[in-house]
C-alpha cells in the first residue's frame, strides 16, 4: 500500500502532499520535512530506495523517489509494493502531468494544486493503484476539463473575482 505521496522542490517546499493514512496536520508537516531531509542529502546516481523516516514507520516502509530537475517525487510504500513498479508509477505520473499541462513545470504544480490532486486521484485511490494506463488517465482529465470549461463559461462573473 502507498502510505503517502509527496512532491517538494530542491529547497524542501512542498508542492503536493497526499496521505493515505491519517496523520495529524503537524505530523504531516514533520513527515514532509523529515523525508526531504533524508532524500535531499543523497548523491545522484545512488539507488532510488531507502528506508522511511521514523515518523512514517521506519524500516517497515520504504521511500521510493525520483528527482526531476527542481522537484523530488517521493512515494512512501509498505513491503507489499514492488519497488521498480513504483518507480514506473512515478514515471507514469510525471508523464501524465506533462501531457495534461503541456510541458509541465514547477509553476504549474503551484498554481494548480487542485488539478494535480485530480490527476493523482485518477491513478491512486486510498493508497492503491487504480489505473496505470496513461491514455485512459488523460482521457478522464480531458473530460473533466471540458466539463469545467462549460460550467465556467456559464457561471463565472469575472468582475468581482478577488
Amino acid at each position, binding site marked *: 500500500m502507498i502510505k503517502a505521496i509527496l512532491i517538494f522542490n530542491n529547497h524542501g517546499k512542498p508542492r503536493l502532499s497526499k496521505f493515505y493514512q491519517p496523520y495529524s496536520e503537524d505530523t504531516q508537516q514533520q513527515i514532509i520535512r523529515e523525508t526531504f531531509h533524508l532524500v535531499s542529502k543523497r548523491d545522484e546516481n545512488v*539507488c*532510488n530506495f531507502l528506508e522511511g523516516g521514523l515518523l512514517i514507520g521506519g524500516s517497515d516502509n520504504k521511500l521510493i523517489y525520483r528527482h526531476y530537475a527542481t522537484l523530488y517525487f517521493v512515494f512512501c510504500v509498505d513491503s507489499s509494493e514492488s519497488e521498480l513498479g513504483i518507480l514506473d508509477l512515478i*514515471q507514469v505520473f510525471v508523464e501524465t502531468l506533462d501531457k495534461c499541462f503541456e510541458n509541465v513545470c514547477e*509553476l504549474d504544480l503551484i498554481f494548480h494544486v487542485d488539478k494535480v490532486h485530480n490527476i493523482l486521484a485518477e491513478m491512486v485511490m*486510498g493508497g492503491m493503484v487504480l489505473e496505470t494506463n496513461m491514455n485512459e488517465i488523460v482521457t478522464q482529465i480531458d473530460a473533466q*476539463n471540458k466539463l469545467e470549461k462549460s460550467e465556467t463559461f456559464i457561471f463565472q462573473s469575472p468582475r468581482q473575482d478577488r
Partner: protein
Amino acid sequence: APVSGGPRCSVPCPARPGADTTAIMPAVSKGDGMRGLAVFISDIRNCKSKEAEIKRINKELANIRSKFKGDKALDGYSKKKYVCKLLFIFLLGHDIDFGHMEAVNLLSSNKYTEKQIGYLFISVLVNSNSELIRLINNAIKNDLASRNPTFMCLALHCIANVGSREMGEAFAADIPRILVAGDSMDSVKQSAALCLLRLYKASPDLVPMGEWTARVVHLLNDQHMGVVTAAVSLITCLCKKNPDDFKTCVSLAVSRLSRIVSSASTDLQDYTYYFVPAPWLSVKLLRLLQCYPPPEDAAVKGRLVECLETVLNKAQEPPKSKKVQHSNAKNAILFETISLIIHYDSEPNLLVRACNQLGQFLQHRETNLRYLALESMCTLASSEFSHEAVKTHIDTVINALKTERDVSVRQRAADLLYAMCDRSNAKQIVSEMLRYLETADYAIREEIVLKVAILAEKYAVDYSWYVDTILNLIRIAGDYVSEEVWYRVLQIVTNRDDVQGYAAKTVFEALQAPACHENMVKVGGYILGEFGNLIAGDPRSSPPVQFSLLHSKFHLCSVATRALLLSTYIKFINLFPETKATIQGVLRAGSQLRNADVELQQRAVEYLTLSSVASTDVLATVLEEMPPFPERESSILAKLKRKKGPGAGSALDDGRRDPSSNDINGGMEPTPSTVSTPSPSADLLGLRAAPPPAAPPASAGAGNLLVDVFDGPAAQPSLGPTPEEAFLRFVCKNNGVLFENQLLQIGVKSEFRQNLGRMYLFYGNKTSVQFQNFSPTVVHPGDLQTHILSGPAQPPVDGGAQVQQVLNIECLRDFLTPPLLSVRFRYGGAPQALTLKLPVTINKFFQPTEMAAQDFFQRWKQLSLPQQEAQKIFKANHPMDAEVTKAKVRDRGRVCRPMNFVGAGIIQTKALQVGCLLRLEPNAQAQMYRLTLRTSKEPVSRHLCELLAQQF
C-alpha cells in the same frame, strides 16, 4: 543515455530549471481562470520573508472567514475558489480549522467541478466532527445513488481516501453490490473494488463476506485491464484472511498471467508500457500467487512454471528499448517472479536459475538492481536448495559492503552476509563485518554490532574466538555496544569454564591500552573479579598488578562502572587475601566512604565492613563465583528483532538449514523465567549498580536494568503481595487493595464501560502521624488518557484518615503499558515515594459478545494469520474448578462449551475496535492449560495472552 534515479530523465522534465526562482504569474492560464487564486499565490510567492508570508496568509484567512460568515450567499464558484485557497494554505503547513462546512455544501452542487473540489477538500482535511460526517455521508449516499458514473466515482474516492469507521458503517454493505452489479461502468467497478479494499483494511468486521466473493474472483477475467488490476489488489487482501473462499483465483490468475506474458509487446495496446505488456498487472498477479502454495492441479502448475520460465528467459534477451523505463518494467516482473519461485521453494531448477539471475544483477551497473538483488538474495539464502548457491557470491557481496557508495546498498549487503552466514564462512564474514564497522555509517553501527555479536556466538567453534570478537567490537565501536551485548559475553564466559582463563588473560591485556572504552572496563572488571585467579600465577598479572590496573581506570569511569569495580574489589579480597589491606585502604578513603553518590557510598561502607567482620569462610560463601546463568533466548537476538520489526528475526532463526547449529551454542534448553532464582551474590556483583535515574524508588527492585539477565525480583518493603502480584490479581477483578505497607494502604474501586472507565483510589494513612505534601499523580506512557476528577482535598493526610481520588479513564487505542501511579509524601520529615502500576489493562475494555458456536468457529477461522494468534501453555496456578474458570472466561465473553472454554468479545477503544476470540483448553491430568487468543491486531493477541495466562 537512460540513467535511472539520476536527475536526468529521458522524458519531458516537469520542472524547468530556475522556473521557481521568479515569482511570476503563469503565462497561460489553463482554461479554468480562477484569477483570485492565482493572484493570491503570486502574492505569497512574492513575500520576501516568512513573516510577510504569514501576514499575507492571515489576511487571506480573515478575508475567507468573513466571506463564509457574511450575510451574502456565496455562489458555488466563489466557494470553490476559497476552498482552493485554503488547500494551498494548508499545503504550506498552516492549520485550517474552518471551511469544512462550505466544502460539504459544495458536495451537493450539481456542477461537477464544485463537487470535485468539495470532495478534495474533505479527503485532504479529514475532520472527525460527527455532525459533519453525517452530512458528508448523506452527500455520498446521494452521489452513489445518482447513477451518474462520474459522481459515483467521486463518492467512492472520498470513502476510500477517508476510510473511517463511520463511513465503513454507512457504506460497507452497498459497495460489494456496486462492484458486482452487471450494469456498473468499468470505471465505477475499478473504484468500487479499491474502495471496498480500503474499508476492509480499516475495519474488516464491517465487510461481510457473501455470495459476492465468487463474482469478485471472476473479475479476473474482465475485459478491462483496469478492472482486473483493481480486482487483483482486492483479492490479494481478502484472500489472506479467507484463503479457501478465494482459492479459485489461483487458476484464473495463472491463465491471465500466461496470456500477458506470452503476448506480443503490442497486443495490449494502452497497457503496454515501454514495450512491456501490462507490467503493473503482471506484478500484482505474481504477488497474488504468493498468497497460496504451488497449484495442485498439474495443468495449472505446468502453465505457471512455463510462465516463470518465460520471464527468466526474457531476461536474457536483448532489450527492446534502451530506455530505463523499459528495463525497469521488465525487471519489476522478473524480481516478482523470483519472489514467487522463492516462495514456492520447491523447484530446485528454478531456484538455481533465479539465484544465477540475481548473481548477474549483483554486478549490474544500475544501483537499483544491485540493491534489489541483494535484498532478494537475502530471502533466497534461507532456502535449503539455494543456500549453497547464494554462498558462492560471498566475495561479490563483501566487495559491495566495502565499495558501494550508497549506504542503502551497503546495508542490504550487510543483511545478506548475515543471512548467508553459516559455520563454514562465519570467520570470514565476521572479520569483514568488523572491518566494515570501523568506517560504517553511524546510523547502522548498532545493528552491525548486534549482528556480529549474534553470528560470533552462534557459529563459535571455539569460544576464544567469540571472546576476541566481542572485545574487538568494544574496541572498534564501544559506544554502540549495548548492554545486551556485554551482558551476553559475561553470561557465556560464566557458563563455560573452558574459556574463563582465556577470557581473563585477554581482558587483562585489553585493559593495558592507555585509553580503553568504558564497556571494556566493565567487562574486564567483571571477568577479573570472577576469574582473575586463573591468571594470577603469572607474575605479570599478579593480583596487585590486576588491582592497580583496574584501579587506574576507576576515576575516569561513570558511577555505574565504579560501582561495578567496587564489587570487583571485594571479590578480590576473597580471591586474593594479599590485596586485602590495599583494597581496604581504597574503600576507607574519604572519596569512597563519603561519596556524594549514595550507591557508591553504601557499597564502600558495606564492603569495608564485610571485609573486616566476616570470617574467611563467610566471605568465601558470600563472594562465591557466580552460578551459571539459566539459558533462554539470546537477549541480543531479541533486541535485533525489536530493532528490525517482526519478521526480521525469522531469517536468523534458521533451524531448518543448519540443524547442527544447536549442538554447541543452543544446547541449553530454554527454561521458563520463573526457574531463575539468583543467588544472593547476584546483587553483590554490582551489575545492578545504579538504578536508572528515571526509575521510581519504590519499584526499583522490580523493573531493573538487568531483568533480562538476572530476572530476580528484589525484596519489597511491602506487606502481603508484591505490587506486581497485586497488579496481576486485578486483571480479573475491579476492586480491592492495590498496595499496603506499614504506612499506607491504597484501595481501588473501578468500573469500565465501552472505552471509558472510572477509578476510585482510596489512600489510607495507617499511622497516627500526618502525611505532609501528599501528592498522588498519574502518568500514562501509552495510549490511555486519564483525567483526575478530584484529588485529595487537602495535601496533609491526617493520621488514621482516608482520602479519595477519582480518575476518569479513556482508552484511545489498544495499549500495552498501564498508567503509573506515583505517590509522594513526607512522613515524619522523611520523603516517601512509591510508584505502582494502576490496574488498567486492555481486557478491562472488553465487551462480551453473544455468539453461536458455529459463528465462533467461522470467525476463528477467519483470524488465521500466524501473527493474529498468540498461544501459551502453562501450569494451572489455581485449582482447576470448572465453575470458577467459566466465570473468569465469561468476564471476557460468552462461554459455550463446558470442557473447552471459549469466549468472544470486542475491545473498545476510541480509535478502533479489536475483535477478540479466546479459547482455553484445560488438561486436568497434567494440571495444564492451553490458552489461545486470536484478535485482529497482533500486539493485542500477544499482550492479552500474557495477561490472561496468569489468571487460571
